[in-house]
């Protein structure tokens, strides 16, 4: 009552002072709210782009586990991407690196992204000035994104809370504090979403110039194949290591029975995807000589096919290129500083993306079989040195002494890696008789001169560098900024081969798709190669043998593309592979004898707990219903 009297006096005063009683009502009616986002097509489109904006940056070294958190690349103290801390065993619960659950330390906030997707799905039907078919398409794209974000999380964290619908902002505590859903439920839900999405997606992009990079039906089918393949793989399919991983109420988060049907489903999905892609004209990329002034040798031709399958934008092999994650920085880091010795001080070239020796060893010999199996290749002498001859001039500088490891290797080896004495085609030298050579020994142009711009192992990922990039004066490095190929046909073929072998054992179909990939790299078929050159000639005939071959083929074909990281986990081979030392050449040496000595850079350790990353301590404190991953 007192306040009523006061209000009366106040109003009287206001009146006396000539102001109106609405003095404090200053808010105009049309302040932007979330409803405005769906009031017209233009803003709805912005919201669609918002949903896309949470897509992980596939090409970013610091943000992508595949590049920095595994063993495919190595760095040095002067450049320490977030993920490298994980590779060196410093992942922890306080402030996890590449935290995609909470969106910190290099990780995108995927749950925020999923919330945005749900907001979009709740509202898109209300937009007045849009035709239904367009709404269908956008809705399908967002369904895909929602599925992909869940998939990215389940790969990283295992069981995660599924977000079918958004909880209200003021939802009570007990509803907000959700539990983690078992992995089978998560995968089931992802597949559900992808199926729903595929129905509404276009097979081809209507307008290349404005829409390339948007989600299409082939992308959705290929990712569905990958999701099913992941689900069917040992990490998620009846993984006994997680028998005791249970929720607080005792319910199991990992299914304990191996389900062979999942491989069957993966195979069906792969076939579906391959069929659609092939019918739409996707094929394995081959270099087109006609665009070039100089004719090139067969060796360079094959190399170009391999390099450009990744580094030529929107080539006809690429099913999904992420236009929101392009490669300018990545290429600067992949190009050796001093490749052009006259541009030694070009600060635009970093060259600090290094590939460990074990990755170099992984490539086949020129016979298309592993170096340890090739009857003619001197495996035990691989750390010796040898002088190159003119025959090898497209690979190694004529007369240059380099590691024995660099001789008689398959074309993908030379296409993927730059090394001391190795030739490097492109970068303004298009005559293959007169191309660059990487000189990396101490005192040479590409050696460690600048503290922060050097390579820790002696191998540069040449494959990631577009051959047309131009190193110029000053700090200018002009690059063909291609979008990151998240999914290309070779990957899909190899998935098909893997699923086929797992589901039904070796078959012609499996060989066919493996051999298609090998053929592009100038290698004969699997059966033929093994029979002729391997110490284990009938390895492709058994399911286990063929599995090993498929695995290695995948690691080689998709090398340096950030796939190895996930594949090793999926196959549960990480404990084996990521417990080997990271090695490189002895960069401080001036002679070949000294330089080509294997030097351990780091003794990597991978424990069982590292298959799934920790949920941050803050999240566990905020939500006591969330259980931590085992071992953390």
């Amino acid at each position, binding site marked *: 009552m007192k306040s009523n009297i006061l209000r009366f006096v106040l109003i009287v005063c206001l009146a006396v002072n000539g102001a109106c009683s609405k003095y404090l*009502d200053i808010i105009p009616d049309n302040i932007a709210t979330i409803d405005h986002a769906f009031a017209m097509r233009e803003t709805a489109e912005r919201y669609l782009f918002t949903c896309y904006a949470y897509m992980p940056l596939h090409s970013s070294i610091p943000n992508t586990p595949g590049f920095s958190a595994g063993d495919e690349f190595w760095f040095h103290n002067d450049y320490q991407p977030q993920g490298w801390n994980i590779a060196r065993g410093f992942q922890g619960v306080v402030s996890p690196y590449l935290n995609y659950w909470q969106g910190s330390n290099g990780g995108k906030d995927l749950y925020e992204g999923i919330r*945005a997707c749900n907001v979009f799905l709740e509202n898109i039907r209300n937009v007045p000035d849009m035709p239904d078919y367009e709404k269908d398409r956008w809705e399908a794209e967002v369904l895909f994104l929602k599925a992909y974000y869940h998939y990215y999380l389940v790969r990283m964290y295992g069981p995660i809370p599924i977000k079918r619908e958004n909880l209200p902002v003021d939802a009570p505590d007990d509803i907000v504090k959700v539990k983690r859903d078992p992995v089978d439920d998560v995968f089931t839900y992802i597949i559900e979403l992808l199926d729903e999405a595929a129905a509404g997606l276009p097979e081809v992009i209507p307008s290349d110039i404005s829409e390339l990079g948007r989600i299409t039906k082939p992308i959705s089918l290929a990712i569905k194949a990958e999701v099913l393949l992941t689900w069917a793989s040992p990490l998620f399919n009846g993984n006994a290591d997680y028998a005791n991983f249970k929720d607080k109420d005792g319910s199991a988060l990992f299914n304990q029975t191996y389900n062979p049907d999942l491989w069957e489903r993966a195979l069906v999905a792969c076939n579906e995807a391959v069929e659609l892609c092939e019918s739409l004209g996707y094929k394995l990329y081959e270099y087109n000589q006609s665009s070039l002034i100089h004719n090139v040798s067969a060796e360079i031709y094959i190399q170009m096919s391999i390099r450009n399958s990744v580094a030529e934008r929107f080539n006809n092999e690429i099913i999904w290129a992420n236009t929101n994650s392009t490669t300018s920085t990545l290429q600067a880091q992949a190009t050796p500083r001093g490749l052009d010795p006259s541009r030694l001080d070009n600060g635009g070239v970093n060259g600090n993306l290094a590939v460990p020796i074990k990755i170099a060893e992984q490539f086949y010999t020129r016979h298309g079989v592993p170096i340890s199996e090739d009857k003619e290749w001197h495996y035990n002498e691989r750390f010796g040195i040898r002088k190159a001859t003119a025959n090898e001039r497209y690979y190694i500088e004529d007369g240059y002494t380099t590691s024995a490891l660099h001789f008689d290797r398959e074309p993908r080896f030379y296409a993927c890696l730059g090394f001391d004495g190795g030739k490097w085609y492109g970068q303004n030298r298009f005559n293959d008789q007169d191309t660059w050579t990487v000189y990396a020994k101490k005192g040479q142009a590409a050696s460690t001169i600048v503290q922060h711009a050097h390579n820790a192992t002696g191998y540069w990922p040449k494959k990631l560098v577009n051959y047309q990039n131009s190193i110029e004066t000053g700090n200018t490095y002009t690059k063909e900024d291609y979008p990151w190929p998240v999914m290309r046909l070779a990957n899909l073929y190899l998935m098909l081969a893997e699923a086929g072998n797992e589901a039904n054992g070796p078959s012609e179909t499996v060989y066919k798709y493996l051999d298609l990939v090998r053929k592009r790299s100038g290698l004969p078929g699997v059966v033929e190669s093994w029979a002729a050159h391997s110490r284990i000639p009938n390895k492709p005939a058994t399911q286990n043998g063929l599995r090993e071959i498929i695995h290695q083929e995948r690691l080689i074909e998709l090398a340096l593309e950030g796939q190895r990281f996930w594949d090793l986990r999926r196959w549960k081979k990480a404990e084996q592979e990521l417990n080997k030392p990271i090695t490189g050449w002895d960069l401080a040496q001036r002679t070949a004898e000294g330089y080509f000595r294997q030097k351990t850079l780091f003794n990597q350790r991978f424990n069982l707990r590292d298959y799934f990353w920790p949920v941050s301590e803050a999240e566990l404190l905020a939500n006591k219903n969330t259980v931590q991953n085992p071992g953390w």
Partner: protein
Amino acid sequence: MNKVYFNNSGRPDTLQRCAPLLLSAVLLLLPLLFPQAVKATHIDQKVSFGSIQQLDVSGLVTDSTGSPLPGVSVSVKDKPLSSTTTDLNGRYSLQVSRGSVLVFSMVGYETHEEVIEDETIVNVILQASTSNIDEVVVVAFGKQKRTDMVGSVTSINPSELKVPSSNLTTSLAGRLAGMIAYQRSGEPGQDNADFFIRGVTTFGYNRNPLILIDNIELSTTDLARLQPDDIQSFSIMKDATATALYGARGANGVILVTTKEGKEGKANVNARVETSVSTPTRNVELADPITYMRLHNEAILTRDPSLPTLYSQDKIDNTVPGSGSLIYPSTDWRKALFKDFAINQRANLSVSGGGSITRYYVSGTFNQDNGVLKVDPRNNFNSNINLKTYSVRSNVNVNLTKSTELALRVSGSFDDYTGPVDGGTSMYRKVMRSNPVLFPAAYPVDADHHFVKHIMFGNYEDGSYLNPYADLMRGYKDYSRSSIVAITELKQDLSFLAPGLAFRGLINTTRHSYFDVSRTYVPFWYQLAGYDRRTGDYNVNIVNPDQGREYLDFVQGPREISSSFYLESALSYNQVFNEKHGLSALLVFIQRQKLEGQATSLQASLPFRNVGLSGRATYSYDNRYFAEFNFGYNGSERFYKQHRFGFFPSAGLAWTVSNEKFWEPLAATISNLRLRGTYGLVGNDAIGDPENRFMYLSEVDMNDSNLRSQFGRNYGYARDGIRVLRYSDQNITWETSKKMNLALEVGLFNKAQLIAEYFTENRSNILQTRAATPASMGLSAQPRANVGKAAGKGVDVEFNYNEAFLNGMWLQGRLNFTYSTSKYLHYEEYDYTDEPWLSRVGYPMDQRWGYIAESLFIDDYEVANSPVQNFGPYLAGDIKYRDLNGDGQITTRDQVPIGYPTTPEIVYGFGFSAGYKGFDVSAFFQGLTRESFWIDPRATAPFNYYLYDGESIFGQPGNLQNQLLKAYADSYWSEDNRDIYALWPRLSTTQIDNNIQTSTWFMRDGAFLRLKQVEVGYSIPTKLAERIRMSSLRIYANGTNLLTWSNFKLWDVEMAGNGLGYPVQKIFNLGLNLSF
């Protein structure tokens, strides 16, 4: 009345017995000592029979030394319009009616009242005020006599604020009981002190007091630019009754300043001129270049032996500091950039006076502060800091009728600044991140480059190193700031309606503006290309011919403008009934609006508004019992309709025990004893930052470039995204503070005065971000709510002592002390039932949590056998933390509250002034304690790359390398010297996340005591002054921040964690003050 005229001395007990005796002795001596006083009491008996109603009274006003006092206000009690001031000879004349009371008052002296019966000459001796006891105190929307006060208000004599600085806020520390103040930077223009009234009891957005200058709300910078010479009164309001009238805005206390007004009389001119020299109190000591190189190499190898080192043995062997060699450079960047001292000037002039209709006070001030930065003669511009501040003030009062007075107050303050593009602090910070041995600041022009007109700045490799000299010389920034305040006030005496009734109305508008412009060129980098070690010949080549630029370009900085409008009207009533019942009442209406011209969002562009009605009623009985009731009823535009208005009542009681009859025997000893107590509510509506004030509305960014996506073959189609920045919550309202204050005032022998106050505060509804929303909710903004609660309590004490000796010597001493502590009562945080030590509840607002650092790891074996530390890579020599919960790993669960809060809990100051004849001397000490601060391990980590928050350095050099502090070089862990208690852990060229965690390792005690100010002055004798037609002339010299006692030696401890910035300055000053 006699009591006023002399000072007792001696012990209380003897005094009581001997008082009559002493009294008569003194009375006998009096004629000898104070001839004028005797005249005043005896000669004034002449009666002017001519005038029955009106008397022409005149006389002389002197101080206790006999010197005439000019500028004393002489007025007739209860007739404010009939008044005058004494002239430069201390003389006055005034027409008064018989039986009226003449009031003689002047700042710094006790007010004296004289009843005029039929005297025509009334000579008066004013005593220097021993206390503020008879002072009139400015309170919210009015004035009260100190003896009637119930609320808690501390005032300061504005002359104590006269420090040799152009920034008033730097003088506040330790001067006012109840104010916590400290200064973190010494950069001209950026040196505002931080200050809080009775500490900090909120963890909301706004913790600063409300600043009112002549009732107008202004900013800290406006306060900083205020001239002490212009200030009539300076008070801080601390408790609920003092601040409740400000309703929803007063919870953090109020600073109330009024400026001088003119007094009737001839023009009185006062001028002050000062010149001062300022120099850093302490510079951070750096290691020598040789050590730098040695340790830099070590830092590389100790973490990764495979990496190449930066400096060859040849370079280390041949580098000679100070040799000026260009081949083996050793650059003392600090010397290259900074001078040892700067010279600053200040001048102030005021004129006041007036006639019976109009009175005026006009003043002007000019200050010039220079930085210590060097200027390269090759540039044709000056990039040293040169801050000129001007201010003008004109206060005019006009008597429109006998009962109507119009006051017009216009003031403006203006800053003109020229300085380095990124400011002085940034230059200091850059010096701390540049390499001392790779290149000189600039190469001399050699034969190859004789055509070059630009400065050949040094750099290295690809030009990615920081050359702070180039950064300083590459251009300059100008800024202009102005602030204009215009106030019109109308006072109407309504005693024709009812005696004691008056009306007052005030309209004000304030305009602020700021803009800056930078003009810069792009430095050309040169590096050493080759040299002949034997002959010393060398050549240099240019690194960035494509990027460098000789000509200036300009960049427009922020342009800010704001305007505010304020309206206040008040009705007051004041009357004494039956001589014993004092009654007063006040009703105030206010309306306020502020508009920002530089809003970054629609919501920020909307006007800030307040409207309120406040009232006060006081009752006093016989000068013994006092009661007061206040309220504020306020509305703010920030809240949803239902929560827009709040009611803030408060009440208080006081009892002047010494005015009781029974006290009379003690009155000579304890001349004053008074008890006061208040309780009430105050609010704080500034709960969110200006961008976030409409919490009841959601906010959506419809064009968020961070959520941008692009598509198309050449990524040609891109759209920004949409992000919810805030979810709406209609329940959000202001924070509320319940304040209680208990005070004791004791006066001893009329010489010493003690005021001690105890206060408590209980804040609720503090806005805070909800903590417990899991990330899996996917919210893009965290909701907030008024859930926080906090409490504060403390003590503030003020003690003054005055002694005037019979030989004319006088002595004053003063001391004040503030203790204020706070604690969280409710803080929304995670469920810490398992880790109770992590809960904020029960700890102070600025308490920090961190790890207990045990030592450095002695070796890798210890690393392997200790709990796992979850902060990224670490090795032997890195900091080892204590596993508090014993779970085998160091995680956030192992954090505990460490140290004291980062805001000091105790601030104190004490000092004395003394004078004899024309000489005076004073000294003031100031200190604070119960404060902890942290050395920033990221900013000081040797050789590391470090950018301050939000900092961007021109050209984005990739090689920022923190300098090596000498203290670190002297004490660090190395593989050869495994000192596990070394100051710095194992060296590294990159940031070691493990070592930068908040921990006890880098925690330091912020306590210090410093000799804040010393002043010596001499005033020439009055006779001599008169001969040169002046009323007074004083020359003085003073110094600020002369000595500091603290355990912390790396930099000036008052700068706390900000130690690598622009140092706090030590100032020596010479001044002249004259009036005529």
